[in-house]
């Protein structure tokens, strides 16, 4: 009896896969129409952003007959990068998504083909793209490596009502992280807010703050003028900036003015901000949509550009953030050409505006920002985005995050330095800086030794 039951169970489970032959899966199962070249895109975009991308891809595939773009999700950003590194040339996709701060890493790798190679042959005019984006996605000699898709903007979400009540103008007062500490203290002590500030925990913000401050993270012109082989975290003006930044973090958490560093942003910080309990949230613009859908649409939200580290902050520009598209070096010119065509298409003002509207990223070019699609959206949902767009236009070319062939070690070292001082009010800031410097130096040394 038992044996029969077992047999039946095994059989029914075995029959299940055959049901799979009837199931149509999203996008992935559609066959390439005859006569078209397939273009494969490896990306880490997930959730609602992925949905928007899939809609755009469908539109592109319907609008032209030469190429057929296929989106393949490869997990998180680090999974995707790992995959790219470990894959042999012929198995590479045709294009891939990558974060802008890793441009140097992609340029130095063997799996990325510079976009410039295609631009040279085509003479594509993308001059209305915001200048800081053009710089951030090119190498030290001005050759374009990739093109932005998600134009992320690092800054501080502020609850304007709280600031009005406190009589503080965030756009004037929040110039550095030390200011953030000062204001967070006032907010909490004078009971304007339950929590003074929360941070999106990512090592990117260290380099962003240093860039706004106006100091280099590594030697060799921040990596743009030759091979960087030493971190500058413990030297000169950079050291002073690092110290000021870490000191601000430590004081904020020692005083209890912030939501614990590392708290899940989507699950806990965003709802708290939307409910009006949090005065400031240092994050990127892509959180905006989530704030709105969590009930924050009734709030008056401002977005202040990323602050520097200390009162010596130059604050003359903005570091670029977000994700772009790069072409992969898989030796297949026909499908690479398709990838290039698709990247150009996505950069067209109407398409870029649609993407910005559906995701909350800023548009990548001023032309896209000027479209009716985006203007209507902005005026209705996020009028203060105008400040961000203006700031982008005014940005200078010097404010850049470092250009390095190593990616994750840098971010990890940065993140760890913040975690150390945020979680322990007595942790020596000098020690945290020394640790970070040593990690970055080791990574650079190993890379230079082996390549």
């Amino acid at each position, binding site marked *: 009896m038992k044996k029969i039951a077992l047999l039946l169970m095994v059989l029914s*489970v075995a029959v299940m896969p055959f049901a799979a032959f009837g*199931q149509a899966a999203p996008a992935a199962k559609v066959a390439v129409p005859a006569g078209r070249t397939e273009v494969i895109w490896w990306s880490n975009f997930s959730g609602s952003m992925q949905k928007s991308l899939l809609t755009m891809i469908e539109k592109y595939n319907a609008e032209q007959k030469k190429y057929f773009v296929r989106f393949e999700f*490869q*997990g998180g950003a680090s999974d995707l990068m790992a*995959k790219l590194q470990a*894959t042999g040339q012929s*198995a590479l996709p045709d294009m891939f998504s990558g974060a802008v701060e890793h441009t140097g890493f992609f340029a130095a790798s063997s799996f990325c083909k510079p976009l410039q190679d295609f631009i040279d042959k085509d003479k594509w005019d993308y001059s209305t793209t915001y200048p800081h984006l053009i710089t951030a996605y090119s190498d030290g000699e001005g050759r374009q490596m990739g093109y932005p898709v998600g134009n992320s903007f690092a800054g501080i979400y502020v609850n304007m009502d709280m600031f009005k009540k406190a009589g503080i103008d965030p756009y004037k007062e929040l110039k550095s992280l030390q200011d953030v500490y000062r204001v967070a203290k006032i907010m909490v002590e004078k009971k304007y807010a339950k929590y003074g500030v929360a941070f999106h925990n990512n090592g990117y913000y260290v380099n962003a703050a240093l860039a706004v401050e106006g100091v280099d993270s590594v030697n060799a012109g921040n990596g743009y003028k030759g091979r960087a082989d030493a971190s500058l975290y413990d030297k000169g003006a950079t050291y002073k900036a690092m110290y000021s930044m870490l000191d601000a973090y430590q004081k904020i958490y020692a005083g209890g003015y912030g939501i614990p560093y590392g708290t899940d942003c*989507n699950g806990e910080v965003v709802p708290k901000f939307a409910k009006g309990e949090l005065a400031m949230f240092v994050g990127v613009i892509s959180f905006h949509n989530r704030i709105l859908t969590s009930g924050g649409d009734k709030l008056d939200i401002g977005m202040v550009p990323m602050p520097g580290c200390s009162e010596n902050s130059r604050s003359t520009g903005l570091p670029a953030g977000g994700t772009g598209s790069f072409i992969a070096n898989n030796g297949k010119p026909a499908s690479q050409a398709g990838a290039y065509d698709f990247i150009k298409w996505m950069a067209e003002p109407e398409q870029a505006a649609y993407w910005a509207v559906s995701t909350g990223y800023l548009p990548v070019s001023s032309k896209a920002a000027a479209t009716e699609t985006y203007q209507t959206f902005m005026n209705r949902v996020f009028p203060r985005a105008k400040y961000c767009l203006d700031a982008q236009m005014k940005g200078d070319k010097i404010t850049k995050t470092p250009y390095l062939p190593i990616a994750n070690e840098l971010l990890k070292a940065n993140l760890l330095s913040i975690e150390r001082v945020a979680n322990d009010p007595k942790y020596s800031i000098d020690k945290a800086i020394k640790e970070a410097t040593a990690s970055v130096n080791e990574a650079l040394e190993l890379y230079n030794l082996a390549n």
Partner: protein
Amino acid sequence: MTIQKQKKIFLSALSFTLKVALGLLFISPLIICVLFSFQPEELIGKTPPTFFTNRPTLDHYRWVFQNISVLSYMKNSLVVCFITITCQVFFASLAAYAFAFFEFPGKSLLFTLILASMMIPGDIVIITNYAQIQKWGMTDKYIGLVLPHLISGTAIFLMRQCYMTLPKDIKSAATIDGCGDIGFLFRIAMPLSIPSVASLSIYLFILIYNQYFWPLLVTNKDTMRTIQIGMAMLVSSERLEYGPLLAGAATCILPVVIIFIFGQDYIVKGMTAGSVKG
């Protein structure tokens, strides 16, 4: 019925209930997963939590099945399991037969080599194996998914234990009757080892079905992914809603739990074969 007997029955009923209650508490995460996967999203996040909602919904399951090719992943997992189990049983039987019924120079050396392989953790060799599979162009194919796992020390060990319990006289008798070595293997030894094969199969099924890292490396195309990867991608993407996450987890666990419940005896036999002496 004497009072003694009544007391005894009461105590054993009590003990039984307590033990079952403890068991249910122990697997409560699984129960919670299933219960909450049927709740509308707004209820899932609320405190105090509602366990039995009066508005159960299949929305999350619908979302999972529409957005994640669950059945396709399941198919891949099951195909991989089937191929791996068949090969492991077959190769292990061959090897075990050699060790159990033959004497040959180098026998103990080879057996030690195989035992030693069991100590090399898979994670050390995984990167090189991935590079190799890539070089041979086997990524995104079933062969790439299964090749490094077509034999394991555990399988050989288990089958050898089984063959060693077969009396040697059977072989001698069969040989006298004119049955060759190979004939003996296929016609007599293998059929006699079916219980061990069953244990091994179920044990291997759980192991292979639950593999995560290797399929992650070897598959790029969505069509080739296994159920664990599909599940993990749900976890690593924006963690906004827990409903689909729980529904996905429940779907993923279901086949294994069913097989476990019904095959528990075999699993126990399979897992304990090596450790119980005598």
